[in-house]
């Protein structure tokens, strides 16, 4: 891909350049340094903010920071309470982490498309994709983690036999076991794939549109990029919210014993 970008010129070259990751290594054992760096940075930001708020947390009158953190926590907790009916120490913090982290990933999309790559370019870094959620690795890493939790909790709550029974005998009863199994496996595998691709697709498309707008003459750009950015505020929040809610719903399904 890197070589392609070098070869292409003009608009195509510009777009490809923006959508190429900063990459080291070859084949599977290569790393997207930009994705890793920005997601770790944003994760650190999330941790730093909430840790500060948690350290100053009092039951009295909350400060501005604590207030904001509590607002998010209450929102997440409400979602968890609405969808999840079991008891789990993991699920609420998991939902909070997913919501905040994905939101921060997506928020990187709000920076003008050329600023961070431009700065990186001055520092000698050729390629930089600043939005981690436009990298399939990031979205799949999260959704596969969630998938592992779904499997883990399914087995833990229903027992290996119960889970196997559910895979084989539902929804059509024991006479159609192979068909049931096929259906269930597809259903389970569809969960992480749809989670990852939904987030990736939305943000990738959004980023692409920003890049396309950036190709237009400067006097048209604000006219288009402003409404798109405003609309994007909704999209980035919504996508973070969807990822969180679906995670809660999937885990709650894993907790339900039939």
């Amino acid at each position, binding site marked *: 891909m890197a070589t392609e970008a070098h070869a292409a010129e003009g608009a195509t070259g510009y777009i490809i350049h923006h959508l190429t990751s900063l990459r080291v290594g070859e084949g599977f054992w290569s790393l997207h340094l930009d994705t890793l760096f920005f997601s770790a940075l944003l994760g650190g930001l999330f941790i730093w903010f909430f840790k500060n708020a948690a350290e100053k947390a*009092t*039951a009295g009158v909350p400060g501005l920071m604590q207030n904001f953190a509590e607002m998010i926590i209450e929102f997440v907790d409400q979602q968890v309470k609405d969808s999840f009916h079991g008891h789990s120490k993991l699920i609420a913090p998991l939902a909070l982490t997913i919501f905040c982290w994905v939101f921060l990933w997506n928020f990187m999309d709000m920076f003008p498309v050329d600023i961070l790559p431009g700065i990186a370019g001055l520092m000698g870094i050729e390629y930089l994709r600043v939005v981690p959620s436009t990298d399939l690795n*990031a979205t799949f890493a999260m959704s596969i983690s969630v998938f592992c939790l779904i499997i883990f909790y399914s087995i833990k709550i229903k027992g290996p036999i119960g889970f196997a029974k559910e895979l084989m005998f539902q929804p059509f009863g024991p006479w159609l076991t192979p068909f049931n199994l096929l259906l269930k496996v597809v259903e389970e595998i569809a969960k992480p794939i749809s989670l990852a691709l939904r987030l990736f697709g939305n943000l990738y498309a959004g980023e692409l549109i920003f890049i396309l707008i950036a190709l237009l003459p400067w006097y048209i750009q604000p006219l288009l990029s402003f409404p798109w950015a405003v609309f994007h505020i909704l999209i980035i929040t919504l996508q973070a919210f969807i990822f969180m809610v679906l995670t809660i719903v999937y885990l709650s399904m894993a907790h339900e014993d039939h």
Partner: protein
Amino acid sequence: MSINATLIGQMITFALLVWFTMKYIWPPLFDSLEERKKKIADGLAAAEKGQESIVLAEKKAKQVLKEAKEQSSEIVSLAQKRANEIVEESKHTAKQEGERLIISAKAQVEQEIQQAKEGLRKEISTLAIAAAQQILGAEIDKAKHQDILNKVSNQLG
């Protein structure tokens, strides 16, 4: 666009973030939220209790006021009754006293009349005697009537 080892790196980061959130972020913030919720609920309950006790106190105050009014009106009516009684009584005694006074005055008048009559009686005899003397003086000669005078003197003696 390819899937590569970044996936593993991201999964590790994610796991660390979730672990950290679960361990250090969620519990204190959530606890403080719950605690505040409880505080607010307690406060509201206390406020409600206060309101209730106010209503109760108002009710009680009304009752007490009513009782006091009843009592005072009772006292007033009693006092009025007593006053009436006193007036009646004093009227009665006054009447009695008056009657008594009238009777004693009458008695005194009677007595005085008697006295006057007595006095008059006494004086009448003197006057009569004087008048008789006057009349007799012209006609009676001491020597002539010496016998009568002597008889009287004898009678007295």
